[in-house]
């Protein structure tokens, strides 16, 4: 996020697109609700009439995968009606002309045709964005889990630059990150093209800095493979050995059969985790890890806030801290690593190697609580808002001319509905944790497929009835939840329970992945539903 969660409570306008915040980020949503009660305007854009829509001034129920056309339509109105921030665009951005030419192709009538949102609503949203300033753009995986995920994000950046809503309180482009430490895993360089602190692996100076610090002659200059490329590289032999640390890939990636086949092709597979799960049966070696509360360290939240995680107990049996495991393997390759705790790793390595975290030290986290990076020195209070005064990392903000492309798998006669998937309030991903927490399982012991009243009536399906949801990959039997929140032609499911996991229906074929980010289309897959009895 460029901004902070607390701003939701005092912003003038929130533009939420593809975020089911009340279930996926419930505490953040409480600030949004506080804001709405205090007069914050709220625009909600989502294929589901989910809870946020209940609080919205304007709700747009768009078709799955139509985001770019819809947003371009809004920007068309902003430009035509002169509602954009000319000063910001001229002084802080570039490539406006090419971008504006592209936008010309998306009048509200066309945006409406593609997105299913009435033209008048598109105009109304544009006028609210153009007159109530600033606005925070907030999104989640509803934006990124598409073949056009990266382009969806860039379109939102276009919108905020056009409105001049960058670098100000109550503005910005704000992705709500999913896992507790997905921001941190990025920050730490668990990425094929970046060392920790977003330092590029193909920069010779950066590479030398890391090689010198770690005490090796050199480091390779070519970025590595992304997850999907690694998984799919196993059957082709591009990758021979694979190490999975704390991810239940079989249950959480699209098409478990495909993932299983890939993992089975590995010559050697290491799985490091706290429980057996759907992925561990494919391992050659399973390494038992310390869990949350069994080791000292830090998490970084979606607002770039680094906070302490503290140990209260020893790991059970012989389970060991994860960093210890990596250190022992390094040792067997002849490298003695100096750090022996989370504190030493952060204070003596991470914060030394990464200018953005240089001022974050354990003693400060212990004294004052979390610190938001960038934090360049120990006197620095941290940075709640990025790109202050329109200063972007690359200099000027770059407008991109972006075309809408349809989802890779369109509904057709055989599979006429679109399935979208995600997470529900009570559970988390494949339930390795929430499935073992008393109360949570009782509250939600099984999964259901949300379908529209119209589709249920058409097929004679009643609420709670077990139905078949089928795609080109497979089928699941699951209870129907007939809901007014679902538009006709749509099915919504989670991936919490193995038997009814939406991933059985999705495709692991890379043609259904965003070509740049290799993110699967978790939000768009053609299916049909059938009555069983």
């Amino acid at each position, binding site marked *: 996020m460029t901004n*902070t*969660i*607390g701003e939701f409570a005092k912003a003038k306008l929130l533009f939420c697109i593809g975020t089911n915040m009340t279930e996926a980020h*419930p505490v*953040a949503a409480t600030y949004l609700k506080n804001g709405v009660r205090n007069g914050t305007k709220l625009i909600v854009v989502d294929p589901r009439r989910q809870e946020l829509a209940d609080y919205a001034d304007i709700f747009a129920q768009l078709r799955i995968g139509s985001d770019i056309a819809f947003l371009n339509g809004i920007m068309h109105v902003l430009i035509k009606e002169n509602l954009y921030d000319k000063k910001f665009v001229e002084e802080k951005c570039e490539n406006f002309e090419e971008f504006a030419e592209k936008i010309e192709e998306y009048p509200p009538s066309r945006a409406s045709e593609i997105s299913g949102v009435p033209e008048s609503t598109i105009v109304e949203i544009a006028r609210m964005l153009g007159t109530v300033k600033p606005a925070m753009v907030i999104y989640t995986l509803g934006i*990124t889990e598409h073949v056009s995920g990266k382009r969806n994000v860039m379109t939102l950046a276009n919108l905020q630059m056009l409105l001049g809503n960058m670098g100000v309180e109550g503005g910005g482009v704000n992705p709500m990150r*999913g896992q*507790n*430490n*997905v921001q941190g*895993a990025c920050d*730490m360089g*668990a*990425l094929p093209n970046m060392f*920790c602190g977003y330092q590029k692996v193909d920069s010779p100076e950066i590479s030398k800095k890391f090689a010198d610090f*770690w005490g090796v002659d050199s480091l*390779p200059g070519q*970025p*590595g493979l*992304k997850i999907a490329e690694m998984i799919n590289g196993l059957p082709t032999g591009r*990758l*021979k*050995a694979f*190490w999975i*640390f*704390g*991810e239940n*890939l079989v249950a959480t990636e699209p098409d478990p059969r495909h993932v299983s086949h890939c993992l089975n092709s590995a*010559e*050697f597979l*290491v799985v490091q985790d706290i429980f057996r799960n759907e992925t561990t049966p494919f391992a*050659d070696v*399973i*390494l*038992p*890890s310390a*869990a*949350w*509360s069994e080791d000292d360290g*830090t998490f970084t939240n979606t*607002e770039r806030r*680094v906070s302490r*995680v*503290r140990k209260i107990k020893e790991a059970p049996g*012989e389970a060991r801290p*994860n*960093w210890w495991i990596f250190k*022992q*393997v*390094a040792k067997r*390759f002849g490298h003695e*690593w100096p750090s022996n705790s989370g504190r030493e*790793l952060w204070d003596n390595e*991470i914060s030394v190697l990464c200018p953005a975290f240089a001022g974050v030290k354990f003693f400060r986290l212990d004294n004052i609580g*979390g610190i938001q990076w960038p934090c360049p020195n120990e006197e620095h209070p941290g940075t709640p808002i990025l790109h202050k005064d329109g200063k972007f990392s690359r200099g000027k903000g770059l407008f991109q001319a972006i075309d809408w492309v349809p989802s890779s798998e369109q509904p057709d006669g055989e599979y006429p509905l679109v399935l979208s998937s995600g997470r529900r309030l009570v559970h*988390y991903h494949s339930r390795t944790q929430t499935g*073992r*927490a*008393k109360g949570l399982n009782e*509250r939600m012991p099984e999964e259901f497929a949300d379908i529209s009243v119209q589709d249920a009536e058409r097929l004679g399906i009643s609420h709670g009835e077990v139905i078949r949801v089928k795609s080109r990959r497979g089928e699941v039997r699951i209870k129907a939840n007939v809901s007014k929140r679902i538009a006709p032609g749509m099915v919504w499911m989670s991936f919490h329970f193995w038997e009814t996991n939406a991933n059985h229906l999705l495709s692991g074929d890379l043609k259904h992945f965003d070509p740049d980010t290799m993110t699967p289309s978790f939000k768009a897959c053609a299916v049909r539903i059938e009555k069983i009895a």
Partner: protein
Amino acid sequence: METHRIRAVINGREITSEPGVTILQAARANSIRIPSLCDHPALPPSGACRVCLVEVEKNPKLLPACTTPLTDGMVVDAFSPKALAARKAVVEMILIRHPLDCFSCESNGRCELQDLAYELGIEESPFRDDGDVCTEHELDDTNPFFIRDMNKCILCGRCVRACDHQSGYHAIDFQFRGIKTMINPPVGSKLEESDCVFCGQCVQMCPVGALTEKKAVGQGRAWQTKTVRTTCPYCGVGCQLDLHVNGDRIARVTGTEDGMPNLGRLCVKGRFGYDFIYSDERLTKPLIRVRKGEKKSPDDEFREASWDEALDLVSSRLNEVMQKHGPDAVGGVSCARSLNEDSYSMQKLFRMVFQNHNVDHCARV
């Protein structure tokens, strides 16, 4: 223009304050104590319980500190004989109905009513007659997360305001009139069928034992637990949690009231989803696959191994693959749920030791 600061005296201490705050807020900001019960700094004031009645010079009547704005020149005394007598009477009246089964009450030791009675030297209510103690409500333990003992409810309304203001659901409110007044979801509905999402914010805000966490039962008294602040293991909001720890067990979890970004707020997973770490199903020993045949098969079993054996095997097999196929034939994914220091170590291992950049995690999903 410089804002005018208010000058006042509270409990004998001179203070200055921004305008627009209550007497109680100004006192808290200056670390001056005024006893209170229905008020909580995270909630809008309501003035329900009258425990915070204070004597203010030139005011013939006692004033509730939680709802009275501080004004210039006020001289406030929370412990004058008149204020103390009133406070004592207020608490004695609350105690007419409140059961005195502190012995078995889950909140013993952190009950704000108990603390007030102790401070004011009250053993039991002089206004209480036989049969006054509230026993009419059945214990409500139908939801999987917390127990509602409405006999112990003192109607301070903190839960109502927490649900409304902090959680934004307003699933519960005052119901019925007079002596029958109680806190409930809408008439005729059970909590499980109401708008309640079981975030448990009401439980955290309850000053007595009317709302208590199921999993905390028998896990230790307040004085037996220590508080350890940490960060929630679920979503990317990164809520700050106070773990109330007894030995190596988490007795219960509350939101850290001054912790950013959640300021004491939690959701159902953050508050109630912690006990997976104690599961009997945890992996506790390194395991090595025992192949039944040449190829991997679902029938293969795993045998326990020492760390040395498992790590030697991992190292030698990875080394073999790299010798045969080059360093790029090895790859790994890190964990977006684990510590920064773990992800740092994994990418260091791949980059520095294995000499490739094949390290990723679920960043873009």
